[in-house]
């Protein structure tokens, strides 16, 4: 996806960076709105703790805005890579210290880092996922559990549920696709 529109994405990032460097408040809000959810997803994937991820997301975005404001980004068109690097550092730092530190307080940023709409959307998704899982057969649930929670490869899952690798792959793909389509429709509402 990124590969499909690289130039447009790069230009947009460079433009956003330029606007933040120029002191535009709306640009900072735009950056937060664009990336807060994605950063949160990454933080959750790494920490597996939603509450901590929420705080870490704020820390990451604050660090990014601070760096952009100070014009520390050498390649403005690689803002995404900069955010990823910052996120990785902050999260690793969290793991090292197991402490959360707020480096600065930017009121304008904190207003948008985490809103109630996003919170309710996440809760709604979770509820729907649970409903959808209820409908799955025990075998499908096991396949997903072994794959997503236990971290087994498809070959290992196939061995555990006594099925062929292709059958497990097909089942898992079908389940993921079904859920993706369903939640896609929910998100579009």
């Amino acid at each position, binding site marked *: 996806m990124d590969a499909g529109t690289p130039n447009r994405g790069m230009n947009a990032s460079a433009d956003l960076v330029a606007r933040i460097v120029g002191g535009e408040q709306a640009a900072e809000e735009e950056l937060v709105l664009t990336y807060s959810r994605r950063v949160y997803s990454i933080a959750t994937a790494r920490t597996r703790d939603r509450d901590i991820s929420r705080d870490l997301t704020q820390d990451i975005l604050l660090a990014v805005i601070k760096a952009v404001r100070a014009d520390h980004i050498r390649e403005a068109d690689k803002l995404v890579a900069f955010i990823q690097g910052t996120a990785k550092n902050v999260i690793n730092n969290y793991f090292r210290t197991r402490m959360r530190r707020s480096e600065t307080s930017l009121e304008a940023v904190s207003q948008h880092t985490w809103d109630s709409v996003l919170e309710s959307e996440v809760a709604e998704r979770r509820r729907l996922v649970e409903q959808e899982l209820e409908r799955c057969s025990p075998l499908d649930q096991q396949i997903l559990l072994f794959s*997503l929670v236990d971290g087994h490869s498809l070959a290992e899952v196939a061995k555990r549920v006594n099925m062929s690798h292709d059958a497990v792959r097909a089942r898992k793909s079908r389940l993921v696709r079904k859920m993706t389509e369903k939640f896609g429709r929910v998100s579009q509402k």
Partner: protein
Amino acid sequence: MDCQRIRRDELIERYLSHRLDEALSDELETHVLGCPECCGLLEELQGVRDALEARAVSIRLTVTKPRLFRFWWQTAAVGFAVILVASFGLFQLRKAAKHDEEPGLVSKLPRQPAENVAEVRPPPKTSQSESSQVQSAGKSPTELAHPHRLPSDVSGAAALPQSDKTIITASSGPNPGASRAGASASEDTKPKETASSSSGLAAVGESPIALAKSTAPKASTDPAHSELTSAQGVELFQIGAVEAAPFAFSGFAQHTKDPKGGKTDSLSVGTVTPDTGRVLFQKGMTAYVEGRYDDAIGFLQSAVQREKKTDDVNFYLGVSQILAGHPQEAPVPLGKVIALENSAYLQSAHYYLGKAYVQQMKLNQAESEFRAAAALPGRVTADSKALIARIVALRAQLEAK
């Protein structure tokens, strides 16, 4: 990295379960930060993962049924195969039943020389009180005739063609002649079929009950044994039923030397000097394996004269004699095997000697042989123990009369 590769290689799943290396993780995260679709997929899979984690215990405890029949056509194929096999089995059963009922076959069966003749007659229509009669006691004729569905190499089952129609007259005195006399007195007009037997249950052409009854007076040490109910007769027959002892031709390897200095024996007859003990044994065992027990006896008796200390010859000679319907001759060769004490055939010899005694209605001696067999390790230990219990129970029934 692109969306297609992420989905194809399931990179997000691997990322979520921390199975992605650091470089790929960085690359994926960078892509996710710039791609709303992949970010959506990541969120959804995270949601699924959290929900699964919450109910992981119950999912793990759920026992998924084994998927024996994945596709309808597999089920159909199995069903069709079952029907086919069942049909074939029924056809064979009917064919076998017809074969048993065919009267012409009886006369074609081999007969032993007439000694100790026991008479097998159709049921008398008038009086049944003159002689003790054995009824089927609710069992099918085939069950009575073939309690174990014994193959042709099993003693007592070689030919029992008309057993389902016969009621057997058992002798009441120690003299077999009395039996014959009593039997013939009851009905002179009925056609008689005379089945000959040297002794024992293994005679050709007689039902087990008939044999048990006809042999009881002359062989039994217990007078109570002369009167058997049908159930006891069947039980006696089942205890005395003998399956051919297994024989593997590899056994020749241990006798590669001709005891009389002849050429080396081997499985190839062409390289063996004729008339050595081993060659005779080989011929005897070929007959034994083919179920020609009388021929086997002849060869083995010749072989035993040349190799008198060979336990395998004596053992298979004894077994062949039982299978050929001469259980009274089995104790001699089997006793020679037992006398060796360290023979590999020791347990089997005790076991088959016990069978021979059962067929002669010598239950005490049979029990002692089975006890000896049960005390030894081997393939018939469990069977011997079971037979002991059955003999004890049978004897208790007979003594209670």
